[in-house]
């Protein structure tokens, strides 16, 4: 028998429905793959007993969904009742949620199997999974003696899916944290429209940008997993009260007559020729499948990253104010005579890593008296213009936009250690616009670079048209026929 952990969600679902395999067998295969992949640092906490209990329950269930018995990994940002949930931060050491996030509650309700919590950048702030208190997650793709980043912040999710440690994983995306790691690992990552998936019980980074989504081996699996994650939730006031379509049913592969926009502003200086070629290849593939290609302009693109680095830290500084050593997580050891301000300051200094501290302080600065208008309000105005660019493109008849997901392939762990923080932020240059405009975006693996590392292209769709977007991604996936897998070295 082939290793069951290598199956896609759709294949496993069909084999379970046909009685060929059980969820217990599938779950055991994943658990043993996880055990053998410690060096990847993908899982931060595993829940093997819970997983087997879930699997037995799934095998016994009489009513099944597309996710019944499917073993999943959960990013450490999602509260799972009774299971350590730390957002990969020291400040949440020992924290065990007393409640369940809406997304995971829905997944367990659909019969999915909980394998454990996945590594990530601390509070989802990072593009390389190097800011985690758990240590680095490592990309299963390897072309020389270097260990490569799986990207971030959902690096553990991407590594786990690419290395077949789970059938699918949850991720979150505030500026590219699902799509960039998917591109770096040859997997599929979908950031849904803002409001499509509930944020209730997901540790908050930047509330107006955060959106959870699926990370999977195929576009079809992304459609299936999105169906389990999405839906209106009264517990999240920004959750969209819209009917939930059957995303998998949208995958007809027929994209004839669709109009794809190619934004000229995404052709940035110093873009490697390979990325440019990949983009041209993607364009040709969609054309081959019957889509109409048009050149478009999104004039405020280059201001998305600067505006993001005002808005995201501003929201983070507010959201992370709750970590004060009083209600949950870790409190610093205090010296005799220390007052409550000493407790706050010492707790936050030792509990937050350097990148989180930096962003909280930048956010504090841009919100402080005298700078609020110059920075925060100006950034919000620029955000209005960024969204308007997309609105105008869609109004002109564009169905989706095609662009590279990342400016490079995966880089080596530690290679950015001496760079200033802005160099790392440039990883998000193609993805962050989508969060600023609240749109759905999906990264699809399309090819390998000369060294043999995967590269992804991103499709950006109209708000709440994930079905259409997934169908375009499905057509691109079929044309690209990307089947490469990392050779096992771990």
């Amino acid at each position, binding site marked *: 028998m082939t290793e069951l952990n290598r199956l896609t969600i759709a294949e496993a679902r069909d084999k379970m429905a046909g009685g060929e395999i059980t969820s217990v067998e599938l779950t055991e295969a994943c658990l043993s793959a996880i055990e053998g992949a410690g060096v990847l640092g993908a899982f931060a906490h595993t829940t093997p007993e819970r997983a087997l209990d879930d699997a037995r329950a799934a095998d016994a269930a009489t009513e099944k969904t597309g996710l019944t018995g499917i073993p999943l990994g959960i990013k450490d940002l999602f509260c799972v009742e009774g299971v350590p949930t730390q957002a990969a931060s020291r400040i949440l050491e*020992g*924290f065990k949620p*007393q*409640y369940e996030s809406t997304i995971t509650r829905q997944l367990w309700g659909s019969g999915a199997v909980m394998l454990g919590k996945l590594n990530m950048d601390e509070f989802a702030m990072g593009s390389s999974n190097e800011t985690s208190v758990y240590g680095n997650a490592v990309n299963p793709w390897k072309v020389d003696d270097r260990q490569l980043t799986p990207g971030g912040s959902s690096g553990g999710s991407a590594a786990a899916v690419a290395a077949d440690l789970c059938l699918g994983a949850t991720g979150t995306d505030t500026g590219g944290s699902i799509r960039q790691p998917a591109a770096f690992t040859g997997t599929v990552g979908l950031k849904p429209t*803002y*409001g499509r998936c509930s944020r209730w019980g997901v540790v908050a980074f930047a509330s*107006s940008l955060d959106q959870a989504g699926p990370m999977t081996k195929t576009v079809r699996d992304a459609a299936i997993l999105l169906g389990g994650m999405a839906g209106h939730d*009264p517990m999240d*006031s*920004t959750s969209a*009260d819209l009917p939930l379509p059957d995303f998998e049913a949208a995958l007809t592969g027929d994209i004839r007559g669709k109009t794809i926009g190619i934004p000229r502003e995404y052709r940035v200086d110093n873009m490697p020729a390979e990325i440019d070629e990949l983009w041209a290849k993607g364009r040709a593939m969609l054309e081959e499948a019957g889509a109409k290609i048009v050149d478009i302009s999104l004039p405020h693109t*280059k*201001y998305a990253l*600067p505006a993001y*680095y005002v808005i995201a830290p501003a929201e983070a*500084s507010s959201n992370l*104010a709750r970590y*004060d050593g*009083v*209600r*949950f*997580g870790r409190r610093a050891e*205090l010296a005799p005579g220390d*007052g*409550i*301000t000493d*407790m*706050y*300051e*010492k707790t*936050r*200094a030792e509990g*937050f890593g350097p990148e989180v*501290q*930096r962003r*909280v*302080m*930048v956010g*504090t*600065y*841009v919100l*402080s008296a005298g700078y609020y208008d110059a*920075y925060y*309000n*100006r*950034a*919000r*105005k*620029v*955000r*209005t*213009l960024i*969204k308007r660019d997309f609105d105008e493109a869609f109004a002109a008849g564009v169905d989706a936009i095609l662009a590279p997901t990342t400016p490079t392939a995966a880089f080596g762990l530690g290679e950015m250690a001496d760079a200033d*923080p*802005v160099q790392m*932020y440039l990883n998000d240059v193609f993805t962050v616009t989508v969060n*600023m*405009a*609240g749109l759905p975006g999906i990264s699809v693996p399309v090819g390998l670079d000369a060294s043999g590392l995967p590269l992804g292209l991103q499709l950006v769709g109209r*708000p709440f048209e994930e079905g259409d977007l997934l169908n375009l991604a499905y057509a691109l996936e079929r044309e690209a026929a990307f089947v490469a897998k990392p050779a096992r070295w771990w």
Partner: protein
Amino acid sequence: MSIDLETARKVAKLARIRVEDEHLPELAQEFNAILGLIDHLNEVDVEGVEPMTSVTPQRLKRRVDVVTDGDQPAKVLANAPDAREGFFAVPKVVE
């Protein structure tokens, strides 16, 4: 705009993050790198543009103003570093 040591110290204080004096120069330098990126926003003409308050056009949902949850002190206190007699305990606040 550039951030000096005094501003860096003030921001750290506002953020309630202890930063030792010897680390302030490095912090100020990192702030300045990030502000260098942010300052590109000044190139944009934002005259007459409304600041975005919501990325989706819908109006926030309203609900009836009634108690829907509560009465679970044990759960609320379960993760506290120091909980005593049904309260969060902190260092003395009032002299």
